[in-house]
């Protein structure tokens, strides 16, 4: 790997070494809340990615004009603006997904991952690197949501690509009785806990 290229480093950091979910345990509410179905988890991941990239870029380009004392409120407004835009776009063009994600869409605004990147990275680094950083963090977050949602949907519903019956693929045939628990709150906690343990084990083996 090209260790000296800062862009590669910026991109991979968010995905592996500082994965927001598996390593930093940030933004856990949507991770647990919308992962009953893979589509919802993926949609939430992409929505968050869009916000983190946009806010990173805008904040990095505005950083010289914003006085340090009011930087947090300004960051919050920028993030909230993009969250609202994402909400409007989802409502207009992906109403089923918007309905399924519910209140977790506006709650992207309080996802600590986004404010964390703004404060720790975008407010100090150049625009392009902030963009790459946003992409990396977004992919890392989406990856975690996607994996958890996949596990939960397969165990809890026995399908992938649900809940829409038209796209849902039954994995185990009619006789399979899914573990409904995984579709519900307790299953979310347990699945994420086990997945974290698994990730810890993997990271340890690979020495990351």
């Amino acid at each position, binding site marked *: 790997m090209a260790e000296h290229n800062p862009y590669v480093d910026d991109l991979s950091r968010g995905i592996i070494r500082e994965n927001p979910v598996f390593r930093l345990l940030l933004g856990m509410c949507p991770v647990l809340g919308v992962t009953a179905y893979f589509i919802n988890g993926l949609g939430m991941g992409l929505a968050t990615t869009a916000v983190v990239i946009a806010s990173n870029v805008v904040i990095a380009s505005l950083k010289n004009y*914003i*006085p340090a004392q009011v930087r947090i409120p*300004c960051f919050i407004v920028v993030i909230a*603006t993009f969250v*609202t835009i994402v909400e*409007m776009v989802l409502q*207009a063009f992906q*109403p089923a997904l918007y309905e399924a994600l519910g209140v977790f869409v506006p709650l992207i605004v309080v996802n600590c991952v986004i404010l964390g990147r703004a404060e720790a990275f975008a407010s100090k680094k150049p625009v392009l690197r902030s963009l790459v950083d946003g992409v990396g963090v977004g992919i890392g977050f989406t990856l975690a949501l996607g994996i958890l949602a996949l596990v939960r949907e397969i165990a*809890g519903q026995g399908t992938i690509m649900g809940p829409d019956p038209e796209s849902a693929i039954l994995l185990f045939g009619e006789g399979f009785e899914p573990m409904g628990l995984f*579709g519900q709150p307790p299953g979310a906690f347990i699945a994420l806990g086990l997945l974290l343990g698994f990730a810890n084990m993997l990271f340890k083996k690979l020495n990351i």
Partner: protein
Amino acid sequence: MHNILRLSVTLVAVAIISAALLTGMHNITEPVIREKEQREYLEALEKFFPGINEYETREIEGDQFDLVYDQDGEKLGIMATVKTQGYEGTITYNLAVDTDTEIIGIRVISHSETPGIGDVITTDDFQEQFIGKSFEDTIQEGEDVDAVSGATMSTGSMISSIRRTVITIGENILDMERKAFALEGLADGVYRGSVEGTYGPLTVEVELSDGRFQNIEVIEHNETEAYFVDAYPEIPEKIIEEQSLEVDVQTSATLSAERIITAVINALEEAPESGSGGGDN
């Protein structure tokens, strides 16, 4: 001083830019959202009422009722948009009925029932059992339609909401009257009727003489005691007092009260006409 000014100006500027941006976005997406909702509703209308030409909206107790007419101004039926409380949150659905209140179709618009459990309310299997049912049927759980085991709260609440909606349409829009129970014609005697409750059957014993309710007793039930005490013996007492099944139902015990009433109706159906010599039933 200069510093504070600069801080405020920055904050205000950021806020104004944000508000302006959002207003712009809002103006773009808002019509798309409206149009989409409208189009889906129109598609549903056309599916349930193929001959639709125009419709007229009426609002009753917060729910929307659209009276559908064809090209000749002939009434085709009614499409209701109803909200009801499910197991986890509000369920919004469309109910289409013809001019005899016979159910043509159901479309769940939004719900937040448990995935894989309560969301059976969106399936054809659940919805199709309502088709053809009407004002004349009582649309009772376990009688005309079945709740789904494991999801009794979600399905039960849909069933009672659909029943209420059909009754509202029948009484308030189509001015229909429910089949009156001609008590006078029924033979004296003691009759039993049952209805399936959430946790098991509820059975009543109805004593009739001279075409009047003399006594109504619940001899078996599996209702939640805390709610049941609000319905019994109050509901039977009211029925006897008013000699009518159209009694006011306490809100805290709606389910139990409605079950008692249905059980009484079922008991009356057992009663033979007084002239018929009372053969076995």
